[in-house]
């Protein structure tokens, strides 16, 4: 039964759907008027953000549609991250998508990913979850392949599509096996299948499910599509996909693990600890070798997935609450700094050498990039520091030796990542400018995004005050 309350619960999704259709339509009829189309898409992102914020402020929560769709502070929080990231992605994509002549389509794709992601974080049913994941990822294949002027774009899109489809099948297979044992796809019922001793079928289901998720969040050894996809993708696509859907994947994974299989925690925390360690090392060690900034940031995003997985490994004992908070804080912190870092590429270039002497030619952009790089390293008082701080504290509280090892690996990896992040900083500060910079895009909307994100990254220490109250008081999961 669709009641008024259920409609309110769906408000962000309905707003997203409305704007999605609007942007698509206006895009068809006014394909020359990029300002209008992009303006609508940006407005749509803000409207989704606003509606989720309103629901959060009035403390709206509940289960709807037979319990498969849940609205709580946790879900709303991630809807905010997704919609906020989309806003900056749209601004950054505005000028470029106008050049392609298909601004409407591209921006519609962004809004589709938004719709899929915000649905996803509210799912409490394995099949609904699968559908939402597909809704979020299928448009993203098209986004990656959207740049017809570059061959890498099609190549990246193709690789992403193939691996993505395989990952989805693996995930679905895992879901089906779990469903077969539990007899229901609802997380509360699934939990019962995991309560007794784990049967072999359930274990296989769990492994497949986790492998599918590992693909989606680019955890090693399932990360190999990431560098190609992000290198080929239009910058705004790489920026957006590396933060928004990924945050949603982590959110729903957290919900599935905590609500659907709490009794199996010893098993999956061990898997997460293992994944976290190899993901961090693989991401950072490969990033060290890159000369292409997109590729470097792609590996960096792998490494950061490893850091977030470290928080998953700490989901035990005393540390449960702190570890959940760590995922929330890290997702927000990562969104601002990584969006910013990616968007700078269009203003400067994708070769590390194109950053040479940037402090002299474009001091504002150079300073912003410095902030993003230092934040990705985890230097206070920038956003990345708070994310890592939370994870380390969660790990320390967990009281598990395996998690201590993970946290140790995180600290080592933070130092390990200094050379490549600061390689760019060194080029910006100490090298001579190679020549006139010809930015791919120099629109004021893009510069505005970069500067706002740089300020948000810098002042995260202030944002953390309401954020920490929010994650603490919302009774999360």
């Amino acid at each position, binding site marked *: 039964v669709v009641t008024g309350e259920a409609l309110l619960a769906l408000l962000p999704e309905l707003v997203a759907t409305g704007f999605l259709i609007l942007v698509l339509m206006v895009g068809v009829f006014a394909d020359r008027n990029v300002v209008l189309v992009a303006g609508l898409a940006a407005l749509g992102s803000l409207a989704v953000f606003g509606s989720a914020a309103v629901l959060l402020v009035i403390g709206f929560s509940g289960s709807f549609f037979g319990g498969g769709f849940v609205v709580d502070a946790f879900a709303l929080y991630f809807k905010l991250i997704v919609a906020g990231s989309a806003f900056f992605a749209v601004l950054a994509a505005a000028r470029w998508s106008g050049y392609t002549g298909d601004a409407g389509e591209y921006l519609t794709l962004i809004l589709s990913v938004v719709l899929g992601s915000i649905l996803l974080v509210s799912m409490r049913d394995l099949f609904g979850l699968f559908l939402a994941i597909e809704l979020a990822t299928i448009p993203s294949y098209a986004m990656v392949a959207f740049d017809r002027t570059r061959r890498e774009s099609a190549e990246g899109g193709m690789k992403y599509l193939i691996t993505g489809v395989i990952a989805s099948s693996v995930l679905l297979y895992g879901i089906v096996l779990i469903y077969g044992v539990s007899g229901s796809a609802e997380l509360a019922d699934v939990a019962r299948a995991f309560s007794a001793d784990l049967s072999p079928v359930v274990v296989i289901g769990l492994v497949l499910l986790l492998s599918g998720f590992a693909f989606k969040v680019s955890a090693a050894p399932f990360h190999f599509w990431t560098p190609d996809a992000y290198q080929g993708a239009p910058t705004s696509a790489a920026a957006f996909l590396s933060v928004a859907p990924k945050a949603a994947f982590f959110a729903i994974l957290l919900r599935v693990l905590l609500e659907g299989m709490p009794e199996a925690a010893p098993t999956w925390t061990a898997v997460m600890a293992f994944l976290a360690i190899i993901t961090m090392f693989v991401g950072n060690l490969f990033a060290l070798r890159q000369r292409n900034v997109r590729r470097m940031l792609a590996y960096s995003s792998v490494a950061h997935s490893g850091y977030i997985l470290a928080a998953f490994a700490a989901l035990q004992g005393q540390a449960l609450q702190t570890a959940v908070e760590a995922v929330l804080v890290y997702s927000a912190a990562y969104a601002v700094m990584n969006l910013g870092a990616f968007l700078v590429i269009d203003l400067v270039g994708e070769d590390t050498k194109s950053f040479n002497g940037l402090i002299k030619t474009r001091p504002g952009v150079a300073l912003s990039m410095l902030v993003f790089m230092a934040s990705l390293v985890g*230097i*206070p008082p920038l956003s990345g520091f708070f994310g890592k*701080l939370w994870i380390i504290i969660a790990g320390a509280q967990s009281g598990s030796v395996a998690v201590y090892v993970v946290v140790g690996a995180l600290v080592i990896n933070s130092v390990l990542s200094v050379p490549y992040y600061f390689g760019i900083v060194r080029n910006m500060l100490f090298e001579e400018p190679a020549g006139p910079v010809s930015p791919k895009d120099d629109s004021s909307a893009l510069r505005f995004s970069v500067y706002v994100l740089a300020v948000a990254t810098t002042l995260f220490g202030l944002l953390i*005050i309401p954020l920490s*109250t929010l994650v603490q008081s919302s009774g999360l999961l």
Partner: protein
Amino acid sequence: VITTVTIFIPLLGAILMLFLPDEARTLRYGALGVAAVPLLLATYVYFAFGGNLDAAALSQDVTWIGSLNVGYRVGLDGLGFGMFYLTTLLTLIAVVASWDVRENLKQYLAILFVAELGMLGVFAAQDMILFYVFFEITLIPMYLLVGIWGDENRRAAAIRFFIYTFLGSTVMLAGFLAFGILAGSYSMDSLSAGGGLSRTAQIAVAAPILFGLLIKVPAVPLHGWLLDVYVSSPTSTNVVLSGILPKLGTYGLIRIAIPLLPDGVEPFLPYIAALGVVNVLYGSFVAFLQPDLKALVAYSSIGTLGFILLGAASQNAVGLNGAVFQQVSHGLYSALLFILVGVIAARTGTRRISELGGLAARMPWAGGLLALGALAAMGLPGLAVFVSEFMSIMGGYETFPVQGVLAALGIILSAMYMLYMLARVIFGPIERPAYEGATDAGPVEMAAVVPLAVLLLALGIFPALLISVQRPAVDAVLSAIGGG
């Protein structure tokens, strides 16, 4: 609230710099105006609250990251106030001494202010996480100051500085976190000595904290980043770099490690004292061999930092007071010497000791003040360094006789190399006609050094000016560690 205002005024200054017109005169006067405010506030605090730094008006304790139990807790105490004050003073002097920064002055001053914010924060933080945050806020600004405005060796120097100190501070953070989680609080005020940890746990926690702090000082085997950084920095960066930055480490030792982890630090104390002695002897020996005047001052600076370590390790009132005091007097004399080296190098075009000579005749003021600084460095009575080195050695000797005697030897060594340097640089014939026409320090340069010289004398003659402020805090440390 006064403390918070003082800490964050430099941030306003940094923003103001970015909006001022790009004209050197305006920028310098603007920066002077901004830098004067924290100094005036700190001076006001000294006269209004000197005997009572615990006053509520100076401290603040608000929730910051609620769910992690991390607070924005700031306040002043006798251990940090001297350095807090010196930070405001040396930043002002660094602005005055920024004459050799010719490019991008605007950005230089803005970054300098961000660094000041971090340093002031460290000396006022009463929460370990906040301490770490402020500690690291200084990292990027110093990296930029050295890396952009340094001389031709700046790149390697800046990167080495970054890697060393980032590694150190990350390890230190791990120690803080472990301590905070085990003890249930990060508040430096409310934690009792040891925080209820067993001796073994304290040792395990103290080791990483000490490692991080000693890299920052730097204590001698960990000093690999120092020489290039000091030598290739512009003069006004040197003022901050040698005057304040090493004390982030020593202050952390005196304020956090020793009083909060007494049992954990205790087994390390003989080694810390020994490292202090190694600093003194190594610094003095190597300084003796330096052909470059600036490198000589840099090693002299490493050497006299050793007395802080020795005094801090002594666990008695005399030694600890000496260590806290030495932080300030070291800052005064090393800033003075670095500025004068900058002046001399600018006038004569060289820093090589062998190429200098007879400066007393050409530059009586600069030469005279250089002599004063050198005499201070060797611990001449009547100057501030004498008081603090003497106390550090006395205190150190009481606890660790061998280290105390060896450190005293260091004073003789420093007298040797400083007098030798003076003989060649200040006196003797003018070696080169090239700088026969070199003029004496001008009014701006004198304005940068005279306050330092005056304070060296004032604190040398009336040490009570500072000791009266720091003594209650030192006594509190001693009662925390159960000594006396």
